[in-house]
């Protein structure tokens, strides 16, 4: 029960190890979370955070080590066991049943029953209402889960956790897909839960959030426990250097490159309901950043340019030649590469081998008299994987077990192998650890130096400001500002990103 927990940690892991075959995912995971505290767990991707969380959640069984909950040794064989013991995990992207109502999602599998074993809907709605009130949020308990923002979906998962009376809540990168306001609301909820005496674990790559929200921070590196500190007694630089085991000199090393001819021209691109009259160009050697709030239509513009989505009006030209709409193949042939937002669903086929993923786009050029063999693919993929330092034991390993950063390298290898003229990269470093992040940034900078035109979409403002030669700000499907590197300050970008919203509200008010 939250609040009544005795002295000592609510959740304690000591020297927990887990390996998958010969791959050691976790060597000595340790963490001790006291009730009434928000404990940050940070580390590069592949540091073992996710494995640790999965052990606590009952997804994996540990190989060795101590695992205690409220001072008692536990061993979860399934996620049901861990839920029953009062552990709840909120994932980055919750999995709700889209066609069921919010309330039904909360009470899935344990609906209150009334007379004659009929589900007591009234009680369910009342309870859901009470939960949302307690969290201080306004969500209609009767609406279907479909169409809810990710932030609202997380709130529903949290409501579910509270209704299960979870004493330990783990939030695995909950803020990665949230906008500023949504993050604030989530933090308010998290603080409320802390004050009720629950133990929270917060995993994030964003240090400003860690330092704003948490009171204690545990650092992991390469499957090992490194340190635990009170937030007040440490600094970002200290944490970062512990995570990577060295000082990170510069996070965003965009070096000036020679700007060449126009590579991409987009003119009057419109798609009903998503974006309107979008025009811009990208030159060789230039990194153009698309900034804006989540949901402003940045990814949709990129997807339309690459041809995976349709558009209603407008034109896309690459090096002066029109690119056919609605055809990724035509875009690839024209020299466009597209690293999408969602690696696991769109970027690569996780169940296919590294070689096949890397060779996926260039394989048409690898055939001999129409015959394509594994050997051809391995020969072509090997050097590209090596150049990007993909960590894998062999080329026939699947990408499914890799960390996010490693998967991103596979996606990049796949697209750089096509030797593109334009690289569109959507959220290049989402869910990637600090070390790989710097590596990706350096790579993008080098690529621009070699004359590649880059269109970069990012929700991380420092990334955009640090990397982009020019920043285009998108707000509600329109480009509201074009800022040069010197003009692009956080204030200027945020102003443009919210400009039309404020404008629209004013208009509404006067109407």
């Amino acid at each position, binding site marked *: 029960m939250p609040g009544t927990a005795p002295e000592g940690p609510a959740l304690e892991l000591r020297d927990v190890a887990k390996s998958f075959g*010969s791959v050691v995912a976790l060597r000595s995971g340790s963490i001790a979370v006291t009730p009434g505290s928000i404990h940050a767990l940070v580390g590069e991707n592949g540091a073992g955070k996710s494995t640790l969380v999965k052990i606590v959640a009952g997804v994996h069984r540990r190989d*060795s080590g101590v695992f205690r909950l409220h001072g008692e040794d536990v061993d979860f064989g399934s996620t049901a066991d861990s839920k029953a013991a009062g552990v709840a995990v909120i994932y980055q992207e919750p999995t709700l049943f889209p066609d069921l109502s919010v309330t039904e999602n909360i009470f899935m599998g344990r609906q209150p029953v009334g007379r004659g074993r009929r589900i007591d809907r009234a009680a369910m709605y009342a309870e859901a209402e009470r939960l949302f009130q307690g969290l201080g949020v306004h969500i209609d308990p009767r609406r279907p889960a479909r169409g809810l923002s990710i932030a609202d979906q997380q709130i529903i998962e949290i409501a579910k956790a509270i209704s299960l009376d979870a004493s330990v809540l783990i939030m695995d990168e909950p803020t990665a897909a949230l906008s500023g306001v949504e993050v604030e609301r989530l933090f308010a909820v998290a603080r409320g839960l802390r004050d009720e005496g629950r133990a929270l674990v917060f995993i994030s790559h964003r240090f400003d959030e860690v330092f704003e929200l948490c009171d204690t921070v545990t650092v992991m590196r390469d499957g090992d426990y490194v340190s635990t500190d009170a937030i007040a007694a440490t600094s970002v630089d200290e944490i970062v250097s512990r995570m990577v085991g060295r000082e990170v000199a510069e996070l965003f090393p965009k070096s000036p490159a020679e700007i060449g001819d126009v590579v991409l021209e987009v003119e009057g691109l419109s798609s009903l309901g998503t974006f309107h009259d979008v025009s811009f160009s990208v030159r060789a050697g230039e990194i153009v950043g698309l900034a804006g709030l989540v949901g402003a239509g940045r990814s949709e513009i990129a997807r339309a340019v690459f041809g995976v989505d349709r558009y209603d009006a407008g034109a896309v030209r690459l090096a002066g030649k029109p690119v056919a709409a609605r055809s990724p*193949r035509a875009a690839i042939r024209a020299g466009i590469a597209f690293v999408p937002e969602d690696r696991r669903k769109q970027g690569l*086929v996780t*169940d296919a081998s590294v070689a096949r993923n890397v060779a996926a786009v260039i394989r048409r050029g690898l055939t001999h008299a129409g015959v394509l063999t594994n050997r051809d693919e391995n020969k072509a993929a090997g050097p590209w994987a090596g150049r990007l330092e993909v960590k894998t034991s062999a080329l026939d390993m699947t990408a499914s077990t890799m960390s996010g950063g490693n998967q991103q390298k596979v996606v990049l290898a796949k697209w750089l192998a096509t030797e593109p003229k334009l690289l569109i990269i959507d959220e290049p470093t989402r869910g990637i650890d600090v070390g790989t992040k710097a590596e990706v940034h350096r790579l993008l900078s080098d690529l621009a130096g070699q004359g590649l035109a880059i269109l970069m979409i990012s929700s991380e403002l420092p990334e955009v400001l640090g990397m982009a030669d020019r920043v285009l700000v998108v707000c509600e499907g329109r480009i509201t500002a074009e800022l040069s590197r010197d003009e692009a300050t956080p204030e200027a970008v945020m102003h443009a990103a919210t400009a039309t919203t404020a404008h629209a509200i004013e208009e509404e008010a006067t109407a």
Partner: protein
Amino acid sequence: MSTATVDRPEGRATRTYPAYSRSLWRRVLLTREFAVIALLAIVYFYSNANVPAFDGPLTLYYLFLDIAPILLIALPMTLVIITGEIDLSVASVMGLSSALIGVLHADAGMSIPLAALVAIVVGAVCGAFNGFLVAYVGLPSLAVTIGTLALYRGIAQGLLGTKAITDFPEKWTDLAKERIFGDGSSYPMILIPFVILLVLFVWLLHFSTFGRGVFEIGLNDEAAHFSGVDVERTKFLLFVLAGAVSAFAGLYFTLRFGSARGDNANGLELQVIAAVLLGGVSIFGGRGALHGVVAGVILIGVISSAMRLQGETVNKINIVIGVLLVLSVISTTLLGWAQGFLSRRRRSSTPISGSSSEDGQRRQAAAATESTNER
């Protein structure tokens, strides 16, 4: 962490990888396909030794005559199922093709080759209709092809009613039963077009860019779309191929029995799908290989032929094949469970430490170099 500059990969690759994580024999022998081939060999040699008359000259000959339509249709069906779709209308297309050949030959006076050509084109059109609804309209293939299963069969029976056309020139009906290497050979003529199609489909699935797309669609069609695979066109083409090959199988069926009927090959689609699944193709898509499928079809043929020679009834044969199919489908789950169980037991008996896992890595590295040496 070194700087990852990317110009061209030649010259100074920073890191190299072995091509395979497992040695050659493991990759070849420890597969579902090989399990089916091994089972086929066992059943074949057992029957040869123990079933009376199984080693006679007619057994294999009739076996191939009987399973030829299944062998033929299993080829495109494998590709369709690997993309995660299914085509239940194949046997109805066979029936339609059979009825059409009968009508065109007997009533319209067309020669057999011309009638066959028309039938195959119609089969392709039937497949194209399925493919259009599945790939471009986006309907589920199960529902679409259940519909066209009834539709095509209905047209076939509408063409001929209950009558059968048996008036085919002997030249052609004999050709369907001809043996390749003269009298006494076990191999009927139909194996020639089959082998040609087999080579074509092996190339298409395993050695072409099209085939890589087929697997990717089955594993993750969105990612396939994002890498420039034309998901719609691939699926459409596969349904067209399934229709055309089914129509060809219908031609063979008609000539072999010298009879064109609207209800020819009724229910054959389930035998085809059963054989494909037995051959190790995942019903969820993304996994499978043609050597396993061919072995699966022949395995079913050998079992039913051997049991028939022993005087068993069709019902018993169906029960055995049904059980085998269920076992093959659950074998993946059972194997995974058994492996998990074994590794858990091994781990609990030997406490894991840093050094033992390093040993594991070394072993894997050794296995990897071994496999590259073999190449």
